[in-house]
């Protein structure tokens, strides 16, 4: 039923709970879990360095965490892959999910920066509204 599950992950408590839930589903359905984190690229940057620094820092930050969860997935015999994307968070998650014909997106209910929430609503709202597949929002 859920062959390919994506977990949108920002390392918040909610995201960790979402990943745990995704692992439970994957164990039950023998699904492939893909852990996706998005590095936010600054809007209207002043130098290329500023952009590259944010991407570099973000990738380093998430890669270490992804490796930890890859080990956990292996121990639980779950097919697992991870990727760090770059861009606007909600949009990147939705685009990746739509492009890769995912069966389910699992994510936490919080995560977006305060001003983005104010202007555009939460990431989870955005994903629920724009994704073509079912979305599971894990509450605290």
């Amino acid at each position, binding site marked *: 039923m859920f062959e390919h599950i994506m977990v949108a992950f920002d390392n918040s408590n909610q995201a960790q709970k979402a990943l745990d839930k995704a692992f439970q589903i994957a164990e039950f359905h023998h699904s492939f879990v893909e852990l996706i984190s998005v590095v936010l690229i600054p809007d209207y940057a002043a130098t290329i360095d500023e952009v590259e620094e944010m991407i570099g820092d973000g990738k380093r930050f998430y890669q270490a965490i992804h490796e930890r969860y890859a080990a956990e997935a292996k121990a639980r015999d779950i*097919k697992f892959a991870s990727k760090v994307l*770059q861009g606007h968070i909600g949009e990147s998650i939705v685009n990746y999910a739509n*492009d890769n014909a995912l069966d389910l997106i699992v994510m936490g209910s919080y995560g977006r920066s305060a001003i983005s929430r104010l202007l555009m609503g939460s990431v989870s709202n955005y994903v629920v509204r724009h994704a073509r597949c079912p979305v599971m929002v894990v509450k605290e």
Partner: protein
Amino acid sequence: MNIWLDAAFWIGLALTASILSVWSGISVAMIEIIIGVIAGNYLGLITTQWVDFLAGFGSIFLTFLAGAEVDPAVLRSKFKESVSMGVVSFLIPFLVCFAYAYYKAGWTLEASEIAGIALSTTSVAIVYSVMVETGLNTTELGKIILAACFITDLGTVLALGVIFAQYNVWLYVFIAVMVLALFLVNKIAGPFTSALGGRVSQVEVKLIYFFLFLLGGLALKANSEAVLPAYLLGLALAKLLAREKEMLARMRTTAFATLTPFFFLKAGLLLSVKALWAGLAVILILLGVKMMAKFIGVMPLSLLFKFGKNNSIYTTLLMSTGLTFGSISAMFGLTHNIINQQQYSVLVTAVVLSGIVPTLIAQTYFRPDRSKKVKPVALPERSN
């Protein structure tokens, strides 16, 4: 006057801008300008000599970094397309915005030239961040756009350096020393860094600072602008700095922590909100004129190079963006009494808006990556 409390206040503003930047995902430069506007107009913040120095050094250093970001391989690979697009992307907006300011807005000749320069710019950084987001930076189209932006930047710094220079003996001294220094730096910086670099005393960084100040000082003597040698010095060292990532990172840390905040805060501080409201119509017209001029220049060439209609509009909109060089040009005009505070406020606001409006339109309606199909990832074999 208590210099340390003053410094604490300025750094406090820079710190606030950085926190807001992390919180909002908006570039720290943009937020520093906005905080500068608030501090200058409502908190009574004024510049001092040491702030002017740090801000000036910040603008020179930003320009140096912009020059160092140029990838000569990218420039060479699509030379015809990138150079022609870069030249028209600078020249047409420069002429059109100059003409509007001079003939319609009634600005003086020199003030109109500043308007032309400030609004002819393209923000390489904004273009780059948008392209990284869309994945375009690795495509042929992306590389051409980026290389064209470097050429536009070069046009801006050349115009700033040449148009207002005094044609006296200092100009010849400046040119001679600059040519010699660029040649020398190109030859010695590599071996110098290998022999003496990587030490606590940061010898190689001091070498770069020395040349930046020397050439900046001579440019000033010739009534030219220090950003011209800074950009060319960056260009001359681009290959070395691409190799010496650690050195670049150290220099960047210094710049972003202690120099560039002063430049962007000052850029905002000098902007008068009263003048901004009074000149709102001119701001919008200048923004429109800039975008229209970019369309006149860049769009036909993009079509000629068979980018396709959607990609051509996207390219043109990206090349209509501006921020750093536009602010530097306007600041140059104000500090050299070429433009007044009203004109400065109008120009900087138009420049900041040109960083936002074309990007939003391009990203909302013309993203090339949203029109193509992406191959789905292959699922792994099931374990049971």
